């Protein structure tokens, strides 16, 4: 079942890659892939384990800047830089998670928010290393041995291959005893502990996993656009990742894809409204939340099931009358 889903997904990627010739569309799809990674990571933390983070842009930025500084300024190989970025993010996420995940609910939100701001300010002010407000230029493009990944199409395939890989990882985690335990923590930490689940260890674990996903997305982003500035990793970006998760559907792997797609595409589609763009954008998000409070995935599935029962109603509505 899930193998078929992945095969279908892979096929879609390949077909999309072959059919797309417009470099703008390819880039848009690549951005969707990067955003899907961000949403997927946060969904593991927020949707499954029920722990909110309003500072995920920090890990996104940490991944992007670590790799960018090492490869652009210090001439490391980007792949070595990626490794360093992941190690650093793991370390930072672990150290942040230890005290932070003792909090929950609003307090955890505030805590992670603060962490996000600290990293943002650090990136902006440490200008000798990060370039400060004027950003960091000359981030090298990626290549795999002799194969250059500089072209839009090659990068598109790279990003979506990573997304597919992360999908598989997440699905395997979700379907395992660890996935069950995460959902149990979401539902009631106290009872989860009484089942023998080491709740604090698992929470730290999933926090680190989701931070690493964000760092991976940051790495892909930095080497795609070759220029990064602090504003790509500010508080609003954190909020946007949360929005993707909520709009797409909490605790849904495919919901991350839906949410990330919608939030990447909407601004592009709404350019026609010029000055009113943000108003329409906000209205659409509000409408979705009011009518599909469970997010797009659950909401659309429910609508589908409803439409099927309405369609069948003529047959079932006769039974009660016959009983009377």
């Amino acid at each position: 079942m899930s193998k078929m889903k992945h095969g279908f997904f892979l096929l879609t990627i390949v077909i999309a890659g072959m059919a797309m010739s417009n470099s703008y569309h390819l880039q848009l799809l690549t951005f969707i892939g990067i955003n899907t990674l961000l949403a997927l990571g946060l969904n593991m933390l927020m949707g499954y384990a029920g722990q909110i983070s309003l500072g995920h842009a920090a890990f996104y930025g940490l991944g992007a800047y670590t790799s960018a500084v090492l490869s652009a300024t210090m001439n490391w190989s980007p792949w070595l830089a990626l490794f360093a970025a992941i190690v650093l993010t793991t370390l930072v996420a672990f150290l942040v998670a230890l005290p932070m995940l003792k909090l929950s609910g609003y307090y955890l939100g505030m805590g992670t928010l603060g962490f996000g701001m600290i990293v943002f300010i650090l990136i902006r002010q440490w200008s000798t290393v990060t370039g400060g407000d004027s950003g960091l230029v000359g981030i090298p493009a990626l290549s795999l041995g002799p194969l250059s990944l500089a072209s839009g199409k090659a990068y598109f395939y790279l990003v979506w291959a990573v997304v597919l890989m992360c999908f598989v990882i997440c699905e395997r985690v979700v379907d395992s005893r660890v996935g069950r335990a995460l959902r149990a923590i979401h539902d009631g930490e106290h009872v989860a502990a009484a089942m023998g689940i080491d709740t604090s260890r698992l929470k730290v674990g999933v926090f680190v996993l989701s931070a690493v996903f964000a760092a991976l997305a940051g790495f892909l982003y930095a080497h795609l656009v070759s220029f990064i500035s602090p504003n790509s990793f500010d508080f609003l970006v954190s909020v946007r990742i949360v929005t993707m998760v909520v709009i797409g559907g909490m605790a849904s792997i495919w919901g991350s894809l839906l949410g990330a797609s919608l939030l990447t595409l909407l601004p592009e589609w709404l350019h026609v409204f010029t000055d009113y763009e943000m108003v329409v954008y906000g209205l659409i998000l509000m409408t979705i939340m009011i009518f599909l409070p469970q997010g797009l995935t659950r909401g659309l599935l429910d609508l589908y099931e409803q439409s099927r029962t309405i369609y069948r109603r003529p047959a079932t509505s006769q039974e009660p009358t016959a009983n009377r």
Partner: protein
Amino acid sequence: MLRVRNLKCYYGKIRAINGVSLSVRPRELIALIGANGAGKSTLLQAICGLISHWEGEILFEKVSLRGFKPPAIVQRGISMVPEGRMLFAPMSVLDNLRLGAYLRYRRRDHHGIAEDLESVMDLFPILRERAGQPAGTLSGGEQQMLAIGRALMARPRLLLLDEPSMGLAPFLVRLILDTLVRLKEQGMTILLIEQNARAALQIADRGYVLENGQIVLDGAAGELLADQDVKRAYLGKDYREFYEGRA
């Protein structure tokens, strides 16, 4: 098997348990009865490691449980059916049962888990029918069965139950308690906490009566059932005598 000595538990500065001692021997079914706020649940949470601020001594199979985290206590063989069932409502019945065996999955005891899944579903056949359904959609009685099944999945040697009869129709209470008797016959040791004193004492070997954080009475279940004080306070009998006596 379980020995609690002079246990004192605190919520901040409030002392909820004030020097309780009790013991549970292997293969015994012990009833701990008491009214709301007597400290029953607190006592149970202390045994399970969910409260870490306690004084006194809790020994399980001669090992002190002081400083043990809940997972370590489950690992040693104590499993709890919490008050109000506390199922994982959005998750399926099967997933709830599997969560009960969480630590055994970690030890990769897949064979044993499959066996126990079968035996729990034989114990409560309705769970087999509802296996794929979210736990939150079960009726109260079915939820209680699932909560007990989930606790059994850890393959405990001591089963603690916190008010399993709460909110259930009398025939369901009977059914749940009969199950406990059956479990006991199969060799389980059970500590049952109940407000429904009559039902609990009818199946128990011995009983303790907890009041304001202290054990006020203990003895064989039959003796407690016949005890005037217990009758007056918990069994809802002798009220006339009670009022006449005051008048």
